């Protein structure tokens, strides 16, 4: 069975500063990794995904993530955040069967 740990529950950051959200996973099989964003009172929106190939994955809104198999990590980064990036971010893992297991989430608050 797989599990996901998001190491930071809250990340405050100033506008135009970089941000990194940390995610570690455990699984006994090959995994597929995802980052979702949830804006207030909305459903989850896919930011990016890693299925195979290059370990550096680029997503929407300037986000990117790097898959590190040896460290079982999939950290999310953005070089310069905007006020509109204030949201909750979820890391998720899926294996055979397409089921997603989510982390507890990281709340990003961008301040001017």
């Amino acid at each position, binding site marked *: 069975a797989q599990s996901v740990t998001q190491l930071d529950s809250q990340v405050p950051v100033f506008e135009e500063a970089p941000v990194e959200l940390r995610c570690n996973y455990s699984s006994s099989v090959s995994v597929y990794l995802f980052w979702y964003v949830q804006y207030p009172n909305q*459903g989850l929106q896919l930011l990016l995904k890693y299925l195979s190939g290059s370990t550096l994955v680029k997503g929407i809104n300037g986000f990117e993530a790097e898959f590190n198999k040896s460290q079982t990590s999939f950290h999310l980064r953005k070089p310069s955040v905007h006020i509109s990036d204030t949201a909750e971010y*979820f890391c998720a893992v899926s294996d055979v069967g397409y089921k997603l297991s989510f982390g507890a989430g990281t709340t990003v608050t961008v301040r001017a």
Partner: protein
Amino acid sequence: EAGVAQSPRYKIIEKRQSVAFWCNPISGHATLYWYQQILGQGPKLLIQFQNNGVVDDSQLPKDRFSAERLKGVDSTLKIQPAKLEDSAVYLCASSPSGDSQSYEQYFGPGTRLTVT
């Protein structure tokens, strides 16, 4: 392309009452999921359908929760009777099937349930 639709968006009920949520997935998506998201936690899968058959309902509290997906399209999730700990956002998601795109799930806006 229309997204995943859910209704109602908000529901307040008293404990021991019953409630039902409705989900209409993206057209052509064979797989449908119901998740429960308790405040401060990530979504937890309750049930997964492939067309109108159940693939996984191992985390569905079957003594009070039920779900169906008649004709392999719309789905309904019911809670009867509700408990205080059922207060959560109930998310519906759908995905295509048969290839790597199946790993991408599309989520609806959710139904926020408050049990008093």
